[in-house]
């Protein structure tokens, strides 16, 4: 005898009911947790931006951000101005740090559109920092960074992060020994033209003493992630060059 659960009509009904129930459950969970997740992302952005300009609680060789409960106040204290550069238009916007760089990159794929470039201007110990959020591709997935520069496009601090680089290899771009190498490194070449910074293996300067060579030492076993970082720095920060030229 055929079992009730073997019937086609039953199977179809079961499938439909299952999809509806599971769909509702997941949509509900996502809705409930949405605000919390967005808040986490917002806090993370503020922490990263502050980190790039050297406002952090680093000890030893660890990466320590400003604690989540304080970050909002500290962010307001150090970030004096947030601007959005769109073509030749520059406007102030204190929500500029929430601009989704990925969405802007997609938007600008159509040549008719002009991408909005957020830039955060911070002040610490009398020094002015220009912090740009940038995004590119690593080996497996996206890599992104916040680069703090002075008005001559000399890197003052960098924070790197990634979505899915290999733990222990490419994922090491989030480690101090990689990020700190960028401090003091020039983005312009000796003639003042934009060159970027290349992550290079065996560049004869492993201690990274030469800050004018536009090169930092690469990570072992992470060539493609390193190339991705180089390309990101070059392509993305170049877009900010006109703004820095006008500063002079």
């Amino acid at each position, binding site marked *: 005898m055929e*079992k009730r659960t073997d019937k086609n009509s039953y199977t179809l009904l079961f499938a439909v009911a299952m999809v509806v129930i*599971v769909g509702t459950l997941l949509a509900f969970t996502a809705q409930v947790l949405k605000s*919390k997740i967005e808040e986490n992302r917002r806090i993370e952005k503020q922490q990263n931006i502050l980190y790039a300009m050297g406002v952090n609680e680093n000890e*030893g060789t660890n990466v320590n951000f400003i604690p989540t409960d304080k970050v909002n106040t500290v962010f307001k204290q150090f970030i004096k101005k947030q601007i959005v550069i769109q073509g030749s238009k520059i406007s102030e916007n204190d929500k500029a740090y929430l601009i989704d760089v990925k969405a802007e990159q997609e938007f600008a794929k159509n040549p008719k559109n002009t991408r909005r470039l957020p830039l955060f201007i911070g002040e610490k110990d009398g020094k002015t920092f220009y912090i740009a959020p940038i995004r590119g591709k690593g080996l*497996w997935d996206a890599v992104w960074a916040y680069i703090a520069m002075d008005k001559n496009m000399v890197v003052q601090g960098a924070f790197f992060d990634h979505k899915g680089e290999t733990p*222990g290899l490419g994922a090491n771009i989030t480690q101090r020994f990689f990020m700190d190498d960028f401090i003091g490194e020039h983005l312009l070449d000796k003639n003042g033209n934009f060159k970027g910074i290349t992550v290079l293996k065996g560049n004869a300067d492993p201690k990274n003493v030469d800050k004018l060579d536009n090169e930092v030492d690469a990570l072992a076993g992470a060539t493609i992630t390193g190339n991705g970082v180089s390309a990101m720095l070059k392509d993305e920060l170049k877009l900010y060059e006109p703004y820095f030229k006008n500063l002079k």
Partner: protein
Amino acid sequence: MGLLTKKDAALIKDPLFDNNPITVQVLGICSALAITAKLEAAIVMAISVMFVLALGNVVISLMRNIIPSKIRIIVQLVVAAALVIIVDLVLKAYAYNLSKTLSVFVGLIITNCIIMGRFEAFALANSPWRSFLDGLGNAAGYGIILVIVAFFRELLGTGDLLGLGQKFMGHPLLGNPIPGEMSGLYALGYENNGFMLLSPMALIVLGIVIWVQRSKNPKLKED
């Protein structure tokens, strides 16, 4: 264990040792190789798999009499996928930093063969309570191997564990590797083995674990 009958206790104990899903059944190898470079990630992965497997087993077991046999694999996949998405969302909301460490691998729990294997082989034919225990046991068996492999890989690869040394001593557990300030083992000429962080070494460490287990456990001895 007064709470469990002897048969129930075996459901938890068997997969831990004699019938371990990784070392004996050789399931779930892919994630065991991928996320064991850091102990912290291994622990969270083990807990996430435990949640998905135990709960999924219960759900499948409760529905075992109404699931149409023609689409039972699809139903199992949907249950596993739904639970994994919930784990992912909860981690993002309440343990944001950890969810970043695990990144894509939480999503990949769906494809962990242990989960489908237990749904199909056990939960479809057993009561919810027994399925729950079976899920816990198998996830624990998976987790214990993950933790063992990650322990050696992180310790020998980076000289530290869970960032504890960095946190309390300002340098890795095995000593300070920075030239000029060397201490601990590094002062004696020890160096971290970067190879340990690569996937091939995970396979070799896992092989050693299997070898040790097989040579020590009389039940697993082959003639």
